[in-house]
């Protein structure tokens, strides 16, 4: 055992003093350092002396640093600070962390807290709401509920309650798709545009691949919509070497969002602060298209009128062949379907999803990306652990912290 400096404590927990009597002095110092780092990295704040001692005990006495790390996940700051900022960049196009608490973030926090299968974030009928005096009820047309929770400094570990989107947002249960159908995600990614943003940012945030990384020009372009110019600026080489590589796979997947929009009054509310998600349920017809498909799917339809015209929300995953096989799709799923829910399940059941979550946690906890073969081996271990522990991301936080707690 290596010898380390030992500082005589002049205060702190009596429990540690007792432990110190039983252990070598050097070992106690190591466990304190490790315990503090575990707590810092997981909760973002230092532990109180009692918690520090308890964690050190787990490390030193019980040789169970994972248990120590899980103690840290009980800290309120793990939910209000670490997880809030972990998820915040996923909820806006600028990927800014400077955003208020919203239903997307709260749902991620709740899923981690309750150790729900993390894959539900892309296909579950799940939502977390808060409560408390002065907190307005959840609304589909503003974010006041969550901003009030945040401004009151609510303990999100305790304040959040699990519910369903279908009971609060008006979406049919089969039209819910985890965080993708939260108000915050709709406001960020269904607003204006063509709904491709929802797909792109979901890929970026939850499969850790932007479109450039999945570019494959060999996929058939038969589902690329009419708005994509096949000769941008008069040069079709641009399309044939670049645009086609992403759109050929993205458009047939993003077709799953064909019935969604974020509606707001552009005159009185140009930023859409008070808009709401819209979903054309069975029997609801878009006045412009005459079908359930939102008119945004026909924006600039004359850019290439020979292109694909979206008839419904059926989707196909063309990336189950070609180089993007390496994203590791779930062979037990069909690779096609209708609507965002099953498409979200397709994404969430990929190996890339699990790897992405683990890498994000690793980066968050270890304050760096994997740099060595050992780091990458640890990623693999944690991916396996995630898959075998019911996609409990809290466990991944703890495992990452243990790996990076020092020695």
């Amino acid at each position: 055992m290596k010898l380390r400096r030992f500082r005589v404590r002049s205060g702190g927990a009596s429990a540690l003093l007792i432990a110190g009597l039983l252990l070598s002095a050097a070992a106690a110092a190591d466990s304190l350092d490790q315990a503090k780092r575990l707590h810092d990295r997981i909760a973002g704040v230092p532990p109180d002396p009692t918690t520090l001692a308890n964690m050190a005990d787990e490390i030193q006495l019980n040789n169970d640093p994972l248990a120590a790390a899980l103690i840290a996940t009980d800290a309120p700051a793990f939910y209000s600070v670490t997880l809030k900022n972990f998820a915040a960049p996923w909820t806006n196009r600028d990927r800014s962390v400077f955003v208020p608490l919203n239903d997307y973030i709260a749902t991620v926090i709740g899923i981690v807290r309750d150790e729900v299968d993390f894959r539900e974030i892309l296909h579950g009928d799940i939502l977390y709401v808060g409560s408390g005096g002065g907190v307005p009820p959840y609304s589909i047309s503003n974010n006041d509920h969550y901003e009030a929770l945040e401004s009151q400094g609510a303990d999100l570990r305790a304040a959040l309650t699990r519910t369903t989107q279908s009971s609060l947002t008006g979406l049919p249960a089969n039209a819910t798709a985890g965080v993708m159908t939260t108000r915050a995600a709709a406001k960020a990614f269904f607003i204006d545009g063509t709904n491709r943003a929802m797909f792109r940012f979901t890929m970026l945030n939850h499969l850790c691949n932007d479109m450039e990384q999945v570019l494959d020009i060999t996929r058939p372009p038969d589902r690329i919509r009419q708005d994509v110019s096949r000769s941008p600026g008069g040069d079709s080489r641009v399309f044939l070497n670049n645009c086609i590589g992403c759109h050929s796979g993205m458009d047939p997947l993003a077709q799953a969002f064909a019935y969604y929009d974020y509606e707001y009054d552009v005159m009185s509310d140009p930023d859409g602060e008070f808009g709401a998600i819209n979903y054309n349920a069975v029997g609801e017809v878009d006045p412009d298209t005459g079908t359930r498909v939102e008119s945004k799917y026909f924006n600039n339809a004359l850019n290439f009128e020979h292109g694909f015209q979206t008839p419904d929300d059926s989707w196909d995953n063309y990336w189950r062949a070609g180089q993007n096989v390496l994203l590791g799709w779930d062979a037990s799923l069909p690779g096609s379907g209708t609507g965002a829910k099953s498409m979200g399940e397709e994404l969430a059941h990929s190996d890339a999803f699990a790897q992405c979550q683990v890498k994000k946690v690793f980066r968050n906890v270890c304050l760096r990306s994997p740099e060595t073969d050992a780091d990458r081996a640890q990623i693999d271990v944690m991916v396996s652990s995630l898959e075998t522990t019911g996609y409990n991301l809290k466990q991944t936080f703890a495992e990452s912290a243990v790996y990076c707690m020092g020695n």
Partner: protein
Amino acid sequence: MNTRSFLRSGSRGLLALLVLATGYGCGGGSGAATVSNPLTTPPEVSNYSGPPPATADVQSFKLNVWDNLVPNNRCGSCHNDSQTPRFVRSDDVNLAYEAANTVVELTDPAMSIMVGKVRGGHNCWLASDDACADIIQSYIENWAGDTLGGVAKEIQLIAPPQQMPGSSKNFPDDPSDFAATVYPLLTSFCVDCHTDTAVVPQSPYFASADLDTAYDAAKAKIDLDAPENSRFVVRLGEEFHNCWSGNCASDADDMEQAIVDLSGLIPVTEVDPDLVTSMALGLPDGIVSSAGGRHETNVIALYEFKTGTGSQAYDTSGVEPALNLTLSGGYDWVGGWGVAFTAGKAQGSTTASTKLYDLITATGEFSIEAWVVPANVTQDGPARIVSYSGGSMARNFMLGQTLYQYDAYLRSDATDQNGEPALSTNPDDEDLQATLQHVVMTYDPVEGRRIYVNGQFTEDLDPIPPDLLSEWDNTFAFAVGSEVDNQNRWAGTMRLLAVHNRVLTDEQILQNFEVGVGEKYYLLFNVSAHVGIDDAYVVFEVSQFDSYSYLFDEPFFVILDSSASPGSIPMAGMRIGLNGREVAVGQAFRNLDVTITDAEYDTSGIQVLSTLGTVVPLEKGPDEDEFFLTFERLGSATNVVVEATPAPPPPPAEVPIDERTAPHGIRDFAEINATMSTMTGVPTSNSQVASTYDLVYQAMPVQTGIGGFISSQQMGITQLAIKYCSVLVDDTGLRASFWPSFTDWNASPGAAFGGDRSAVIDPIIDNFVGRGIATQPGEGAVATEIDDLISRLASGSSNTEDIMKASCAAALGSAAMLVQ
């Protein structure tokens, strides 16, 4: 021979089977409802004094064809009195009509003998045979429009030559073989003109000093499979184009040998024997499908940019005087007809431009119609797409681009000399896109200016009431792609430009949009060998999409023998082959999975296989590229395609030890706030703290890497620390909890801090630094620092509470809190 006929109406119109045997029918379709004659002022018109036209058709012939061609500087010098057929004889227009009927094809004017003869080089009065042929074709189309009630065109499908997909040679990506064989001849003998740096640059730039540029330009001029047919060889040997030795045959031989040498270095691309293929054919084997049907009754200037070379863009409207445009500056002819302007201009003479002044001011209304491809959506000025002007601030009209909007300028009695105020499309609508668009600007004294994009009115209203055009200036010049003074260049491709001296109606604009632009062909791919039916074809409408690709559109299945029926033919996994191999990109029909059935086929006479179109890359050029189709399943033939599983990428290399991230980091802004709250016991929701946090949180660290910490972040941290400590000290309950042994809050500094200071310092160490943690700052050192600080402050004018706040903030805002 079995043939099938179709009526084609518009570029996206459905094909409707009309006639089930060889022969022609007369169609109505969506062709122009021609009611008035084009305004023409041909030179030297003979005064006709013979018998009057016997029928309305003869009258139409006279107005549309005879009047235009009878002058001595057209066909009248020969085909009037002496040379048969005497289709412009002036003694009796009825006899001329009879003669003309032997050399025109009203149902397909482009196929008229008269047009073909001129296109082949027969006594064209312009420098371009094609331009003369197009002009005569437009005369015949106008006649046909009157006669047939429109020019909707009947398409007759005829079996093409049957050939198996051939092995062929394809240009390698690497130009080094070209550089070693053909390139030296080009750079030696063609360099005076065919480079972009020549005094008068002559496109294509196959002698460019840039090898890649030269290689790309030369590919279309080289036939690797038959070097003797290469354009380079033909141009020297048969057309005697600037031979360098004085002996064109010798120069042609040298060039041919160089191409033979190049070809010898390139291996043959063999067709995979496992493929289930159709027969092969090239674009020249296709059947022209261009619908005609454009409404051009009142066109007064028309540019189709078919020439493909040289510096003249011909006005083929047939309306004299021809307002031909001279190209200058940076421009390139593009495949599929058009001119791409980079920093160039096409301008007519002021004399010829007066045609616009004369014919537009006569009607007081006009339309500018163009098929354009803006190169980008960042140019402004406006960038001049089309202008009839005398300089940057004086014009009669202009169609321009400002970012995503089209701008229409017009001089009238209600606007200024520059045509302002302008009508612009709403920028939020982003009507202008950097892709092929049909744009029309119209003006009439009732509606004023209107802009149409892709057949639709943009709904942008003229900001001022319309007025007369009496302020127009007939000394201005007509220019495309630039202001006449070479300012405000427009970057983009012009593929067709028409000026009409009447307003096009909404229907006419939509009609012209639907007709499309460029030459289109039906390519009939024979699949009889696999389906067991003679003359069974998969037919595509194919066109050159731009200089780099083809458009394959709306495939359908047809059997030329109208008495045959398909039965039941499964077809799946159709791919487009090019020059001996399947194209790697753009295979939009590979997911096709249909069954051709009697039920589907019999109702329409064809079976549409897909309504989609796709673009595939151009390789050798439209005259050389050979296409074929492959199928994963066709009839009983199958070729199951199994894609290889990609190999996973190798793991990334380890980061060198000295470049690895430090094991410690810093807290981010939210963690700092939470940590300070935890350490002091002041809740984050405290109004004073929250207010300060709102001010400084964006100044504090966002990233947790310790290497990115900067001094400005420390300022934010310090401000927040001071606020937390201030609130802590000001709150008697909180401070009593934090400093339980310190009670001298109201004492002077000397009294409060004169003795043992452990009651002040120890809680700070306990709460902010921690005890016994090796990675934290040394407890003794921290205590000494705080002690020194208290001493310094106590000797000054600070009161006790302020000294407590400072002692607190110094530790709270330090690395003891920040580093994790």
